[in-house]
């Protein structure tokens, strides 16, 4: 049914005079179990079908999102969209849709998980955290199953499907100690809620009796949650739209060093275990793997056809009709074991999680982010004291240049503060500025 709705949108758009029409449909069935204080607080489920349509007439662009999918309403919405496009002004940077047809990877078989199993996973996570020493456990579990399709007036046509399981667990030990961990996977065999519960509780247990952290410059180990959060911002600044809008410290840096030699950063829409993989982008191009930073040197921005034309490059199949979007972020692993990384640190701070990353200036990369859950002072490569109240107040390009090494094991991270799924190891960075609030 959805293919036919997308086709209807394309036909109707062309019939009414559009030069280009692209339509995607997304059908999503999702369930979420939220829990707090060791029990389920609310169960949620969603079922929706959405058609997104882009039309252009003489480079005048209009975009519509349509949820009222009766044929009459669809036609009326397309008519409204064309009316909007006709009355707006040209976007001189607009590039015509890429000419298809294209061949796409075939979809993986979807998961089917019963509600009773979802609750069981939650119970497993809570029990595991409690038996590992937590006194309160909170979190959310999501099972998502979606099918996506594309039709364009340039001949692209395809379907893809994706299902995934995610759990985020936060364990508390007293009022001031907490730990957070997650598990996310495309298959039930790779999904480990009990491990997430245990890992969160172990951090919480170590975090008890925190002392006020002292501000200053420290060598720090950033856990996967922190690296994933910051790399979401790094990849966002590599979106060519943001570069053009001055919302990026990467303006004018193509081919130049933007990070230490240790860092290689990749966007990949093709990964079989990626939680945000898709066979095609919103213009119908088959998705690909794009190396954004290689050994510290900026290799490529993320492009759709229009930004690629403006920058004199080829699309990296990251459309977004207006803003190129990443698929899955990969931070390439280093060659040091996690134990070796702590030995390399010797004396410093280990930060397990963060939130509320905000920029004073996206162009320069000046920002701060609040450390949360376990923060630890490390001496002789060992955790010796739990800390609280610290904030990373830094400049993002400086922080990237100060990365000295990465561990040899990667973890998938996706949770409330990490929107784009990110596969990352631990990172050791030198001379990181930490601040704190005073009375």
């Amino acid at each position: 049914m959805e293919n036919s709705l997308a086709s209807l949108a394309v036909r109707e758009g062309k019939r009414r005079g559009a030069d280009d029409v692209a339509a995607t449909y997304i059908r999503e069935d999702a369930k979420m179990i939220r829990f707090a204080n060791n029990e389920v607080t609310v169960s949620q489920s969603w079922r929706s079908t959405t058609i997104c349509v882009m039309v252009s007439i003489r480079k005048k662009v209009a975009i519509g999102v349509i949820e009222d999918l009766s044929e009459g309403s669809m036609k009326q919405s397309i008519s409204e969209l064309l009316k909007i496009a006709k009355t707006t002004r040209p976007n001189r940077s607009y590039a015509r849709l890429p000419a298809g047809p294209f061949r796409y990877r075939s979809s993986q078989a979807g998961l089917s998980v019963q509600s009773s199993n979802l609750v069981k996973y939650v119970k497993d996570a809570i029990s595991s955290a409690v038996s590992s020493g937590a006194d309160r456990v909170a979190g959310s579990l999501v099972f998502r199953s979606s099918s996506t399709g594309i039709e364009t007036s340039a001949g692209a046509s395809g379907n893809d499907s994706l299902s995934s399981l995610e759990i985020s667990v936060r364990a508390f030990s007293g009022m001031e100690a907490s730990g957070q961990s997650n598990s996310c996977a495309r298959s039930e065999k790779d999904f480990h809620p009990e491990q997430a519960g245990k890992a969160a509780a172990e951090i919480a247990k170590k975090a008890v009796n925190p002392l006020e952290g002292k501000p200053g410059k420290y060598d720090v180990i950033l856990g996967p949650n922190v690296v994933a959060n910051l790399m979401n911002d790094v990849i966002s600044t590599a979106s060519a739209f943001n570069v053009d809008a001055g919302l990026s410290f990467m303006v004018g840096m193509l081919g130049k060093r933007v990070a230490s030699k240790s860092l290689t950063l990749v966007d990949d829409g093709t990964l079989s275990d990626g939680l945000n993989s898709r066979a095609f982008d919103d213009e119908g191009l088959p998705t690909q793997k794009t190396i954004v930073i290689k050994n510290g040197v900026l290799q490529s921005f993320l492009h759709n056809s229009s930004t690629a034309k403006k920058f004199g490059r080829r699309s990296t199949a990251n459309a977004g009709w207006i803003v190129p979007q990443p698929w899955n972020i990969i931070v390439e692993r280093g060659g040091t074991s996690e134990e070796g990384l702590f030995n390399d640190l010797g004396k410093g701070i280990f930060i397990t999680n963060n939130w509320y990353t905000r920029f004073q200036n996206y162009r320069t990369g000046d920002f701060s982010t609040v450390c949360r859950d376990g923060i630890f002072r490390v001496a002789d490569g060992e955790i010796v004291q739990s800390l609280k109240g610290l904030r990373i107040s830094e400049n993002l390009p400086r922080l990237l240049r100060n990365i000295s090494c990465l561990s040899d094991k990667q973890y998938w991270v996706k949770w409330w503060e990490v929107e784009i799924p990110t596969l990352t190891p631990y990172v050791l960075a030198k001379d990181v500025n930490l601040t704190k609030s005073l009375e």
Partner: protein
Amino acid sequence: MEDIARFAVEYAGSLGSTYSEARIQKLVSRSTSIKNGEPQFSAFLTELGIGIRLIINGALVFTSTNELTKSNVTETVLTAATMARIAAETLRKPTVLSNVKTNKDKWEVQQKQNLTSVSIEDKLKLILEADKCFKPRRGVKFPARILTLSETINEQTFLNSEGTFITSKIPRVAFSYIVTAYSPSKGTVQRFNKKGESAGWEAVSAWNLIELASEEADILASILNEGKKPPKNVLDVVLGSEVVGIVSHESCGHPFEADRILGREAAAAGESFVGVEMLGKRIGSSQVTVVDDPTIPQSYGYHLYDDEGVKVRRRELIRRGIVNTFLHNRETSAELGIESNGAARTISYSREPIIRMSNTYMDRGDHRFEELLESIPKGVYIKSFMEWNIDDRRFSQRYVGLEAYLISKGKLAHLVRNPVLEITTPGLYKSVDAVGRDLSFAAATCGKGDPQQGAPVWTGGPDIRLRKVRLGGV
């Protein structure tokens, strides 16, 4: 549409629910955006669906769909009922909602000039003209600019198994921009700002976007050309209305949300340093009164009933320095044995109603701006900000000023760049010794919930004076 909502509630009842509600929501949005003086796109969004909550065997479930056929709604409610029965087996105590008055009402925000009466062409023309105000001046260029004008019409029908039936229609309009100013010798500064009201086109006319953009360009150029290094020590600080608004929102509104206090949001949005035992205790100086009020006409967070059908009211969260009340929905108020004060909101048919702010502000005092400055030998006035954040218990916060001035001998001396105020919540509220008499508001989108729900709110307040706080960050 009312029929399908009524069917959902009745069908939930037949499955054994002790409470059920249905909300049909139609959201029509239009927006137009330009980047660096060039139109990017115009967008049109229609969202139409049903959100249903029900309680079976003490377990609360939310479900939604945008396929509004009877058969699909039947299947959706049935799935939700199954989820409830499974979840109920894990509960130590059932979800209980507090008793509230049954309401029947129909209300809407009247537009003096209908948003659809202005063509997209004219809307685009207006923001292109505003964009032209960012012309180079005094050696400063504005190489990167995004300006967006957006509007939504939100029509809702809410009914529940207790007999409440409310229909509403709220138009909202917003203008936002992010601009980069650049000087080869002074670097860059960036400014994000947003205007927003629940009103028609008359709000946009009153904002005077051309004047707003011209003033913004002037001040950004001045910050780059004249801004000096700020002092870094213990001194008196005057916070402007824009900063007081974000302070009131982040370090009073959020920690006073009862769902955080009771741990329901612990996994993501976090908990609160405020506990129930702090009711009636001092948290700030007697100058400090912080209010959350959904009933301010034309405000961005305006509404008359919350999304549980409860009539809303003005809530004094902090009254003269004392913790006075929290923000409640029917679930948290039942847990504490009190009445709901109507703080449940949702942004879409596809999101559960949770406790949210509306328009949060520090209440006005009696000082003129000059009076706030006159007793300060040396200090800093922070009028606006860019970077800010706060920990997830809402205790430790940071604001980095954008437009800020050195105060010398009771007067504004010169601009300073990026002063940092990094302070605890009690530290901030206890240091307030004077409050201005002019109240103003800014529009913002508040984030909370899992999945995220960005709610339209106003933040506001007068200018306020803090005595002896450490500036500069440590």
